[in-house]
């Protein structure tokens, strides 16, 4: 087990969002967390990436409490890309990606050939080498998202947590980003956990789906096991038909009508 939430309770202020949740992430898998708005999936991802400290329970990275590890050491193993990150104006793609090397740098050694190589490789893998000197704010939404993923890649971690990496992207760009994620998984053997809203894409690109509702895990398993008509009613309160995706053969959800509002 690479990453594990053991009875974690999470919340903001007085509000508890997730109460006593258990979840394990196997090495070398792509896990996608799905669920309705406000179900706690982003909160859970933030806790797995030690961006949010649990009220109770603990998050274990390779069997050790993540809170007890130096944050810089964690950053060499685990990368987190939050939802809709913002960069200062005028930051170039190369500069953004170079900042992914932060955990590997010390105040006396700011840049090494390792850094150089990792940045060049990350730019290459995301197809951004030709855009390296362009400011981020001149890029399209899809290119910008790839640049952020490229930064997370330059960090050189084999565990990658992505919070809604396809938000605000059109369908073609969503597929482009998810193909990139699949390549990272298949070619570089990275372990990936992401939150996605599009169920059909989630089913197509994940080894394992985790469905959440009200801060609890309702179902976890392969897309075929999880994405059923019954689950759609229970988790999303949606009357839907689940058929086989004619291209990938994975389950595909065709919505009919919401249960609560006939």
């Amino acid at each position, binding site marked *: 087990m690479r990453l594990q939430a053991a009875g974690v309770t999470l919340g903001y*202020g007085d509000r508890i969002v997730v109460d006593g949740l258990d979840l394990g992430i196997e090495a070398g898998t792509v896990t996608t967390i799905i669920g309705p708005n406000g179900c706690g999936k982003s909160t859970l991802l*933030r806790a797995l*990436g*030690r*961006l949010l400290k649990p009220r109770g329970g603990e998050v274990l990275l390779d069997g050790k409490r993540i809170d007890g590890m*130096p*944050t*810089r*050491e*964690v*950053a*060499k193993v*685990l*990368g*987190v*890309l*939050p939802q809709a*990150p*913002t*960069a*200062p*104006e*005028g*930051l*170039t793609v*190369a*500069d*953004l990606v*170079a*900042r*992914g090397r*932060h*955990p590997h*740098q010390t*105040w006396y050694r*700011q*840049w090494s050939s390792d850094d*150089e*190589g990792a*940045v*060049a*490789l990350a*730019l*290459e893998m995301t197809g951004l*080498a*030709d855009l*390296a*000197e362009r400011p981020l704010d001149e890029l399209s939404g899809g290119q910008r998202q790839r640049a952020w993923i490229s930064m997370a890649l330059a*960090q050189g971690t084999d565990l990658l947590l992505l919070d809604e990496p396809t938000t605000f992207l059109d369908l073609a760009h969503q597929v482009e980003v998810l193909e990139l994620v699949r390549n990272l998984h298949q070619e570089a053997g990275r372990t990936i956990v992401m939150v996605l809203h599009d169920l059909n894409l989630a089913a197509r690109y994940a080894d394992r789906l985790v469905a959440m509702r009200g801060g609890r895990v309702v179902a976890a398993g392969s897309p075929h096991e999880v994405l059923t008509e019954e689950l759609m009613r229970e988790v999303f309160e949606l009357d839907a038909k689940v058929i086989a995706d004619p291209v990938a053969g994975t389950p595909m959800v065709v919505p009919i009508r919401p249960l609560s509002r006939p």
Partner: protein
Amino acid sequence: MSATAVAPRLHGIRRRRGLVLAALLAAVCVAVVLSVTIGAKAVPLADAWTALTAPTGTENDIVIRSLRVPRTALGVLAGLALGVAGALMQGHTRNPLADPGLLGVTQGAAFAMVASIILLGTQSLLAYIWFGLAGALVASVAVFALGMVGGRGGPTPVTLALAGTAVSAFLYALTSALVLLDEQAMDVFRFWQAGSVAGRGPDVVWQVLPFIVVGLVLALVNAPGLNALSLGEDVARSLGQNIALTRGVGVTAVTLLTGAAVASCGSLAFVGLVVPHLARPLSGTDHRWLLPYSGLIGAALLLVADVIGRVVAPPGELEVGVVLALIGAPFFVALVRRRKPVRL
């Protein structure tokens, strides 16, 4: 384009940044020469050199050694300090309109100086400056503590800015009330508020030097963390940066730099607001370059403004703070109009 072809281009970017740094250093050197030689009494460069290396007690020697050199040194220090502090402040608050006085440092210094004159009868310049420094530190600590109240996990840029504004307004009110009671305090305050590097001896330079050196070192140590923070707190944390520590170091550096500069030279915080906007087009968003560029531009700007102030209104002089505001304000307007405002 292959991975190997990207690397040389990344190299090229870094070499260009080194060249700009060298050019800015040269500009500061030129400004230093101007500041040492130009004034009410113009001293030829050769005589100035003699005065520094082999003084014989001539009038020129005395002017150079006891007036021009300390004044120039203080100008360099204050310019460096305010330029770097301004860039740090704008980086930490992600606000391009932040100035280094935002933490209440300027008003803290003013209040402590005025209060020391009225309550303790302080007379000497050195003593004023000690009180000014202490006031700056206390005000900044108060702002930091207030900014922490109610917030989860340390002060945020917004709570800091709000607390800083409140504390500044409060201290300004107290200072204004105090100077109405005492003529001597009013006189000191008037000149302090204009901002000047004139009439301070070498002892003042030595007095503020350690604070500025420590502040500059902390600022440079802070630069990589600030780069991470500028991508947002979540990204910074995921890159392994300790947010509270980075903010604490940054605030300490701003306090030391601004406190030393305003206690010794008066209210010159405008330098800190403008200079980062001049440095950013040269450095980009990387604070490891932005901070040194801002410091050097601040030093050059302050010296040149001081030299202009010495020659525009003979036989008198115009305070450097006045010159900076007079030439700086229209220049800032032009800058804002030419370039679109920068989001940080």
